[in-house]
């Protein structure tokens, strides 16, 4: 027995959070993660268990700290865009988008209509892809293993589209300040339409497997109830907030990138439990499809990038014929553009909630401060609140339902 | 066939070891296990006698004793778990909250 004596200094930084009961040995301390199949990356949870009931849960983060915020401050505005993909690696295009929106706001850059529509299509596709990963891993957490592979089958189609647009499956970085990197290739529209055609049937398939499955209901109904008040108090956003009955969605509340042009609903649920969050995300995928459909139908033609040469490098064809273009090219790629002093905050609705970026310029080509307001970080804070009184098995479902991406948490 | 008295002798030895266990061990669970060993010795004696006499009755008794042992285990282990939760110990020497 003496071997198991717990001392506070053995518990590193989180030692002060351990309760008296655990130190006396009445409850069991269990270290879940950072290497654990269900923590979706490298989250460490220090659990205090009474039997299998979670008495307390202390999330310990920072194992995936990449220093992206600091890194971005050492790069020019344009070059730093490539780092944004690495934040929330399931929402790469969305990260590009918010960063570019912030720069556009900072320097007052216009974006052509076609680029805006394409951005919406890509971001909504990315939302579906992200929700598919969530659904698959959530299913896997509950040991519905086939779900995972079905979801990845559909995600693959989106990945293919991304590759088509950006030449890369995940880190496409195809959204740039002032528009898109370049126009989508031929066949893009056909591929997206094909996806829209197939995907509703597939959603129905998932729902057949899960929505009314008694085992799934057992595992999600009334698990981790987050009340409206708590959700607002803890700054929870995204599907988690909407599942608690608050119809808050930045796409409606503060439309950006032309979302006001499209007709879509914000799904909400009132129960605030894991099942409600499941329903909200499933419905969001359908709504995303609606948006993509409309955007495709109304897709205007024209340029996809602003012509403001102060900020947007000229196309390669121009360089050979125009001296001015060559100068712009040289200047933008060596020094970068220089915004005036000032600060902006821009936020979009990522698949996980409000994804915001705060940019502060001190009048040099490199940002003085980049700060990300990431939804995973804020949503993760409610995990102890949700987990208390549940079983270890539910904790797994809860980590899944928050839909954290550790890259998004640790930055 | 072996003389049945060998089996009885073995049963007696096992019974004595069980008795010893109750007397010298101070851990409630071990004491309880020793009691189970004693009961088992009784069962062995019953079955041996049943074989010696060709009477089935001995085997039937064993059946009842097993059922009763199961009942006793349920209650006994519940008690042990109970007291461990209160006291964090199942050493019967430390059970002295009552004084004479």
């Amino acid at each position, binding site marked *: 027995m003496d*071997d198991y004596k717990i001392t506070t200094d053995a518990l590193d930084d989180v030692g002060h959070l351990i309760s008296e009961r655990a130190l006396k040995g009445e409850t*069991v301390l*269990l270290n879940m993660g950072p290497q*654990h*199949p*269900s923590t979706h990356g490298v989250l460490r949870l220090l659990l205090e268990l009474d039997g*299998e009931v979670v008495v307390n849960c202390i999330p310990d983060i920072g194992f995936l700290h990449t220093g992206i915020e600091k890194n971005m401050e050492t790069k020019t505005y344009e070059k730093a865009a490539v780092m944004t993909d690495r934040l929330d690696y399931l929402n790469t295009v969305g990260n590009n988008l918010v960063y570019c929106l912030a720069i556009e706001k900072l320097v007052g850059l216009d974006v052509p209509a076609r680029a805006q529509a394409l951005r919406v299509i890509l971001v909504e596709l990315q939302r579906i892809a992200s929700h598919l990963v969530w659904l698959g891993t959530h*299913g*896997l*957490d*509950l*040991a*519905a*293993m*086939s779900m995972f*592979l*079905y979801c990845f*089958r559909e995600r693959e189609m989106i990945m293919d589209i991304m590759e088509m647009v950006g030449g890369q499956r995940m880190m496409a970085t195809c959204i740039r300040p002032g528009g898109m990197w370049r126009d989508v290739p031929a066949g893009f529209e056909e591929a997206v339409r094909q996806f829209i055609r197939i995907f509703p049937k597939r959603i129905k398939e998932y729902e057949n*497997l*899960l929505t009314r*499955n*008694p*085992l*799934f*209901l*057992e*595992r999600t*109904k*009334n*698990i981790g*109830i987050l009340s409206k008040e708590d959700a607002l108090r803890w700054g929870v956003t995204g599907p988690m907030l909407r599942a608690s009955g608050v119809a808050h969605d930045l796409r409606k509340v503060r439309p950006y990138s032309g979302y006001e042009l499209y007709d879509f609903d914000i799904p909400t649920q009132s*129960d605030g439990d894991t099942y409600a969050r499941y329903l909200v995300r499933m419905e969001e995928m359908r709504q995303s499809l609606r948006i993509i459909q409309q955007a495709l139908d109304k897709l205007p033609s024209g340029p996809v990038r602003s012509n403001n040469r102060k900020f947007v490098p000229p196309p390669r064809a121009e360089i050979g014929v125009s001296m001015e273009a060559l100068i712009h090219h040289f200047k933008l790629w060596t020094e970068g553009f220089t915004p005036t002093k000032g600060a902006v905050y821009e936020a979009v609705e990522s698949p996980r909630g409000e994804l915001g970026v705060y940019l502060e310029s001190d009048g040099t080509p490199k940002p003085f401060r980049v700060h990300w307001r990431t939804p995973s970080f804020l949503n993760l804070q409610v995990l102890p609140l949700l987990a208390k*009184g*549940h*079983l*270890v*098995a*539910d*904790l*797994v479902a809860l980590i899944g339902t928050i839909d954290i991406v550790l890259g998004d948490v640790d930055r | 066939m072996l003389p049945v008295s060998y089996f009885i002798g073995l049963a007696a030895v096992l019974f004595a070891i069980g008795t010893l266990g109750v007397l010298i061990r101070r851990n409630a669970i071990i004491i309880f296990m020793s009691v189970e060993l004693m009961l088992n010795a009784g069962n062995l004696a019953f079955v041996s006698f049943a074989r010696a006499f060709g009477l089935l009755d001995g085997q039937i008794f064993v059946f009842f004793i097993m059922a009763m042992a199961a009942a006793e285990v349920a209650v006994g282990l519940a008690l042990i778990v109970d007291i461990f939760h209160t006291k964090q110990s199942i050493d019967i020497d430390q059970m002295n909250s009552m004084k004479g």
Partner: protein
Amino acid sequence: MTTGSVWEWIIKSVVIVFGLLTGFAYLTLLERKVLAKIQVRIGPNRAGPMGLFQPLADAIKLIFKEEIIPSRADKIIFVLAPIITVIPALIILGVLPFGGIITLFGRQISLSLADLNVGVLYITAIASISIYGIVLAGWSSNNKYAMLGGIRSSAQMISYELALGLSFIGPILLSGSMSLHDIVAAQKPLWFVVYQPVGALIFWIATLAEVNRAPFDMPEAEQELTAGYHTEYSGMKFALFFMAEYIKMIAVSAIAATLFFGGYRFVLEDQYPILGPVWLLGKVIVLLFGMIWVRATLPRIRYDRLMAFGWKFLFPLALANVFFTAIGIVLEKLWLIPLLTIAVFLGAVVMVGISETRRWRSHVF
């Protein structure tokens, strides 16, 4: 006992053990292939034609893997635990009839190892001790996850053993014997699954729990307990746990086939007794496919719900099944049994459905 019969007995034992080991190896392949088909993947296809040598490759890999014994583990029990797990799995089929009597080299050979008059009890006894390996593995690893896995498994197996034992009673009552040979013989006119549909279902669910298969794979729930009781095991020791699980799958399928699906008997078996093992194998494969199918489809039940399901649903249902079977036999109206039991089963399902819906509505967990 003549020398000849001793040899016969030894040869039969060896054949059964090797059959089970081969069966285990190819069951893993079957499972991976079937899962892959269900999950729109390809599955193993590199080692040999259609991946047929995959089990061999796996075995070689596992043999050469490093064996790690955690320094704070209880070494003796840590090493013993996998062995204790495998042995019951290997010997449980000792009483099973694989076929009738065949004539080989002018010798009458019965296609079974032993015919005990307490055959069914033998199975329950072996099933009940097969839990020790898991519990001890969990304990000796000195790891909290393994420990939780071990404790879960002991609670789970004790709970489901009751329903399992009660579901044996249907065939015993119908055949009036505890010998598996007699039970097979009694199914000559009609498989017992006809009289015991609910009993067969209970048996099948309970065996899923007994062999720790999805959706009852609590002890090793990888998403919660990393790998449960075998978290700390590697190499051949891990392989033994794996082997035990799959051999148990084969064994319970064979037992289910014997108790409820007519055992080795099927068309033409009377004329050609050698067909007996073939038919039995066929039935086993169908049942195994069912297990794999369930694994691919269903999420895992939560631990407390699993216990509730076992005690509050399966166990009473098994009792009711025994009760109505006895009534049918006493009244000598066997056709009553399936009617009554299915009615009770449906009633129970509806009741559970109502109460669960109410529970979900009332926001208590």
